[in-house]
């Protein structure tokens, strides 16, 4: 992946030198071998901080709305899934097209850093990574490792719809083959088979653990409200009290508020400190969107009407 990193830096440098953008948002090496961290580069000299590899899980499109009123233009490094966020933000009029330069990188999947960290010698530093199809090789100063994708990749990457960014001004790296996964909704289907009581018990168990840290909401690229209903003090729709009732209220509201706009980037699921499988909630909605509205994953191409944001007089829904 060294060539991708090289090209990324060159392109970012060019954009900044030619003053096409004033800021490049990309991935930089994090404080753990298997982690990256968002970097915000505003000078051509700073581009050496940019990196790429199988540890770039974050969806950087989240930051675009922070700069929608900034003076200059912003470039952002996106994977396939993150690119869906860019399209969705454009379709929602959250950002304007002429202010954003999309640097798309075809993505062979992202590894779960905790799983990698458990195998690699603590304190080792990263030298190089490579995609070998079924696995990633990770070279460190304390030895070389191989991580097969099946066991070490983020769950969302195992059924990736868009390895190639669906919107991109500058594409870096080779386009990857697109696969369709019949088992994309396997986990949701399994949950659907359960009785109402069992489903309720399943989610009660999950939601009762919630700390209400709001990481799932804050990391969400399509959570764009200026003041979230859960932060409002007057009236206080949901209190700071954590209990099953309040937590459930929060999670169901969150899931429905992004229904039809959620791009299935899986970030809510990744960042939950309590490992609540939040993506399953949104995936149920995605499955229904497909089954009931024949609607593709939001953001997978420009101009898809939001299933819950459109009204058609010819809607066959009986109760209308």
């Amino acid at each position, binding site marked *: 992946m060294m060539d991708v990193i090289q090209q990324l830096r060159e392109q970012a440098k060019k954009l900044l030198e030619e003053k096409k953008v004033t800021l490049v948002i990309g991935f930089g090496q*994090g404080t*753990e071998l298997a982690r990256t961290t968002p970097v915000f580069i505003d000078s051509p000299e700073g581009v050496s901080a940019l990196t790429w590899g199988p540890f770039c899980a974050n969806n950087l499109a989240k930051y675009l709305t922070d700069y929608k009123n900034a003076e200059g233009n912003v470039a952002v490094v996106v994977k396939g899934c993150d690119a869906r966020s860019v399209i969705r933000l454009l379709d929602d009029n959250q950002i304007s097209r002429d202010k954003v330069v999309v640097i798309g990188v075809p993505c062979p999947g992202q590894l779960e850093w905790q799983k990698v960290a458990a195998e690699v010698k603590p304190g080792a530093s990263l030298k190089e990574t490579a995609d070998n199809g079924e696995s990633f090789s990770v070279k460190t100063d304390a030895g070389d490792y191989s991580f097969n994708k099946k066991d070490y990749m983020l769950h969302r990457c195992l059924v990736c719809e868009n390895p190639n960014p669906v919107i991109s001004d500058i594409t870096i790296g080779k386009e990857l083959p697109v696969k369709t996964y019949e088992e994309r909704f396997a986990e949701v289907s399994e949950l659907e088979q359960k009785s109402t009581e069992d489903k309720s018990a399943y989610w009660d168990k999950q939601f009762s*653990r919630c700390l209400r*840290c709001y*990481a799932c909401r804050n990391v969400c690229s399509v959570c764009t409200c200026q003041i979230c209903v859960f932060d409002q003090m007057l009236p206080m729709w949901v209190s*700071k009290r954590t209990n099953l009732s309040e937590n459930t209220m929060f999670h169901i509201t969150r899931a429905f508020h992004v229904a039809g706009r959620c791009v299935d980037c899986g970030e809510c699921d990744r960042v939950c400190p309590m490992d609540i499988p939040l993506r399953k909630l949104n995936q149920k909605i995605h499955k229904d969107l497909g089954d009931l509205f024949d609607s593709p994953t939001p953001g997978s191409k420009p101009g898809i009407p939001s299933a819950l944001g459109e009204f058609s007089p010819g809607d066959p829904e009986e109760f209308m």
Partner: protein
Amino acid sequence: MEARVVNKGQLPELLDKLAKDYDLIAPVQEETVVLFRKISGAADAFLEYTNSDVSPKGCFLPQNEKTFNYTYTGDSIEINKPEGAQKAVLFGARPCDIKAITTLDPVFEGEKFGDEYYSGKRENTVIIGLSCTKVLSTCFCYAFEGGPCDGTGSDLLFTEIGDKYYVEVNTEKGKALADAYSQIFSSQGAEQLAKDKEELAKKLAGEFVRKVDLTGVKELLDNNFELPYWNGDDQKKCLGCGTCTYVCPTCHCFDIFDYPTGDFTGARLRCWDSCMYPEYTLMAGGHNPRPTRKERVRNRFMHKLKYHLDRYNMVGCVGCGRCVRKCPVNIDITKIINDLKEVAQNA
């Protein structure tokens, strides 16, 4: 220092007895997450963990605490306080988390502002620590004079050595508990185990990979509230979630509000709050002393590295590494400490 020995095989018996005689709070595993819950016996406990996902601070400062119930009776308001704290044992907490409790003590048990809810639980709880057997890449307790086998704050400290636990008796409270279960706490072989424990502590001390040096950091922050450093990437990448503060064993901010349960009844609650939230310390008139993420991020680290020291002469961080592990965007207090140290050196 007195010491005892407990055979590992007898631990289930001890936990079952403790659960019968006390409210027993111990680490449990829920799916992939390790957290502290009240358990009914040894079968519920999960001790094969290194650092729990949530710290045991909730034993003394629960995320939700009812301070009283109120009923409006027409001409007056009736206030009913909940019953006092039950006798409890916190078993299996790691040294960093116990040290964290000692950083909460002066906040809630100070002469000026004693807090009966906290101190009631604190007085009635025996803390039984469990030394670490591993060091994670995110651990840095050594930087705050702690250690994987450090007994600070614990009443008893268990250290696993082979098929035994070496038990240090650190307080009278701990001694009373050990004496009450004298058929389980023996004194045979304690001397040899004491040496083994020292060896283990030495071995683990060499396993830390994070270099954290606080030299000059406090002095820098004392004199520079408006440090350009806080305009950097950390405030740009911070998502403003409360994960770091909620998993932190020393964060202790709370919000107080009434929770009506009917037209004339309700409860006054205090619940964890986070300085990362936009409504934290928002004034009734609309003024927000920390209007953007920059001020909020600065506040969190100033609190850990300066304010807590100013007030209580203790660093507000114990090096458990939870915020480092859990931050969605890899904001890392060890990097911030080292960066600040560098800023101080170049100043």
